[in-house]
C-alpha cells in the first residue's frame, strides 16, 4: 500500500507542473495589456511603467514564469491587484464557506440517492422504480443556474421559509446545498440502483439471509458494500462537476466561497487572483481524485498490485 501511495504521489508532480504552466499560459495570452485594463485609457505613461514594474511585467516572459513557479513552490500565489493582499490569504478566507457547501451538497446527494436507489432496485420495474428513474433523468438535466433561482422563487419568495442568498447560518446553507447536490444525487441514485440489481440475485446474499440476518442488515451491510467501489469511481468522476457547479451555485446564492471569488476576480480583471483561484480549484480536484484512488486501493487490494 505504501509503494502504491508513493507511486501515485510521484506521478502527480508532472501533472501539477503542467496545470501551473497551462494556467500561466492562459492568463498570459491576453491580447490586451493587463496594465491598460487596470488603469484605463487615460493613465499617463509614467503611471503605466510604475505599475508594470510593480507587477513584474517588465521582465521577460520566461523570467516571469520562473518566478511564478518558484513562488508556487513556496506556497506564494502572488498578490491581488485589486486589494493588494496576498492571493493565498484571500483564498484561505473563502475556503470554509466552499468546503461547507460542497460537503453539505455531497451529504444531501447521498441521503437522497442511497434510500431511493435501494427502493428502486428492490422493486425494479414497479411504479416507484419508474418514478425514481424519471426523477433521476430530470435531476441530472436541470442546470444549477436554473434550479437555484427556481428554489429561491418557491422556498424564499413564495413560502418565505429560507433566506434568498448570503451565508447567515444553517438555514442559508439549505438551498445552495440542495441546488448543488441534485444532479449528483440523480447520478448516484441510478448507480446505486444498477449496482444493487447486479448484486441482489447473488448467492452470498441468500447465505446472509439464511443465517438469519434481517433484510436491513443484508442490504446495508452486505449488498451495499459491494456497490461501494463503483460509487467511489463515480464520486471521483463527479467531483469535477461538483466543484465547477459550486462556482455557479455560489454566484447564484451570493455564497462567499472560492467560486464566487473566482468570478469576482474575473470581473475585476484581477489576473493574479484569477490565476490563484483556478490553480486552487484544480489542485483540490487532483487531490480529491488521489483520495478516491487511495480509497479504492484500500477497499480492493487487487488494484495495488497492478
Amino acid at each position, binding site marked *: 500500500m505504501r509503494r502504491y501511495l508513493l507511486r501515485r504521489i510521484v506521478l502527480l508532480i508532472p*501533472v501539477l507542473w503542467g496545470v501551473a504552466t497551462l494556467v500561466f499560459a492562459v492568463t498570459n495570452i491576453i491580447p490586451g495589456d493587463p496594465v491598460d485594463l487596470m488603469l484605463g485609457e487615460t493613465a499617463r505613461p509614467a503611471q503605466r511603467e510604475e505599475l508594470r514594474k510593480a507587477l513584474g511585467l517588465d521582465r521577460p516572459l520566461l523570467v516571469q514564469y520562473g518566478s511564478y513557479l518558484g513562488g508556487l513552490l513556496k506556497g506564494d500565489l502572488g498578490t491581488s491587484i485589486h486589494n493588494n493582499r496576498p492571493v493565498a490569504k484571500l483564498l484561505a478566507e473563502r475556503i470554509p464557506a466552499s468546503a461547507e457547501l460542497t460537503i453539505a451538497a455531497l451529504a444531501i446527494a447521498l441521503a437522497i440517492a442511497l434510500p431511493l436507489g435501494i427502493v428502486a432496485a428492490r422493486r425494479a420495474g414497479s411504479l416507484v422504480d419508474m418514478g425514481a428513474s424519471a426523477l433521476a433523468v430530470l435531476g441530472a438535466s436541470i442546470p444549477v*443556474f436554473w434550479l437555484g*433561482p*427556481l428554489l429561491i422563487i418557491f422556498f424564499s419568495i413564495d413560502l418565505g421559509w429560507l433566506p434568498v442568498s448570503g451565508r447567515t447560518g444553517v438555514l442559508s446553507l439549505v438551498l445552495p446545498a440542495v441546488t448543488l447536490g441534485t444532479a449528483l444525487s440523480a447520478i448516484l441514485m441510478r448507480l446505486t440502483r444498477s449496482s444493487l440489481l447486479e448484486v441482489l440475485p447473488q448467492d452470498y446474499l441468500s447465505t446472509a439471509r439464511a443465517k438469519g440476518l434481517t433484510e436491513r442488515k443484508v442490504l446495508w451491510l452486505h449488498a451495499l458494500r459491494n456497490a461501494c467501489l463503483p460509487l467511489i469511481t463515480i464520486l471521483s468522476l463527479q467531483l469535477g462537476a461538483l466543484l465547477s457547479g459550486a462556482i*455557479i451555485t455560489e454566484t447564484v446564492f451570493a455564497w462567499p466561497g472560492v467560486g464566487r471569488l473566482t468570478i469576482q476576480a474575473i470581473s475585476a480583471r484581477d489576473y493574479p487572483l484569477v490565476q490563484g483561484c483556478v490553480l486552487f480549484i484544480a489542485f483540490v*480536484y487532483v487531490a480529491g481524485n488521489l483520495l478516491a484512488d487511495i480509497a479504492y486501493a484500500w477497499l480492493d487490494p487487487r488494484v495495488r498490485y497492478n
Partner: protein
Amino acid sequence: MRGNASIRFGAVIIVIMVIAAVAAPIFAPQDPYTQTLSEGLAPPGADHPFGQDKLGRDIASRVIYGARISLMVGFAAVLVSVLVGLIVGSIAGYAGGLWDEGIMRVTDVFLAFPGILLAIALMSVLEPRVGNVVLSLSAFGWVGYARLVRGQVLTMRERDFVSAAHASGAGPVRIIARHILVNILSPVIVEASFGMAGAIVAEAGLSFLGLGVQAPEPSWGAMLADGRNFLLVAPHLTLFPGIALALTVMSLNILGDGLRDWLDPAQKR
C-alpha cells in the same frame, strides 16, 4: 424507457428544437430585439405568451432565437472536440510508444481542470464572442474523446482485419480512417450525444456568469442571468428560458441513454 423508446423521445424533441431554431423568424411571434420600455417585465399575456423582459422584449421570441445559439454552440463545440479527439486519440493509440505517453500526459493535465473551469479561465481573457465560446468549450472537450478513441484504437490495432490491411500494403492513415474509425464510431456517437448536452449547459453557464454570449444576443444563460435580478417581481423571466434549456439537455441525455443501450447492449447499466 429503454432503447428505442428513449431514442425516439429524445430525437423528436431535438428535431423540434432544431426546426424551431432554423425557422425562428417564422415561429417567433415578435422580433427578439425590439424594445418596448413601457412594457418592461410585463407578465405573460395574449400578445406575449411568455411575457416581456426588463426592456419589454418578447421572451417567447427570445427563447426561440436562443435555441439557435444553444444548439449552434453545442454542436460546433462537440464537432471540434470530436474531430480533435479522433485525430489525437488515433495517433496515441496507433503510434503508441512515446507519442502515446506524451499525449496521455498532456490529457492528464487537461483532465486536472474540473468541469468548465478551464473554459471559465479562457473566457476570462478572451473576448466574449460566440467563436471564442466554442473555442474554450472545445479546449477541454477534446480530451474525453481522445482518451475514448485511444482505448478503442488500442484494442482494434491487434485485430486480424487490421493486420490484413497492413499486409496488403495500406498505410497507417488509410488503416485508421478506413478500417479502424468506422468500427469505433458507436461509443463516440453515444459520448457526443451526452457531450452536446454538456456543451449546451456549459455555454449557458458561461453566459449566465457573463463570460459567454453578450447582450443583446438572446442566449438562454444570459436570459437566466437577467431574470435573477427580478425573481421577486417577474419570475417568468427565469421560468421560460430555463424550461427550454432543461428540456433540450434532458432530451439529449435521454437520446444518449437510448443510443448506448441500442448500439452496445452489453454495456447496459
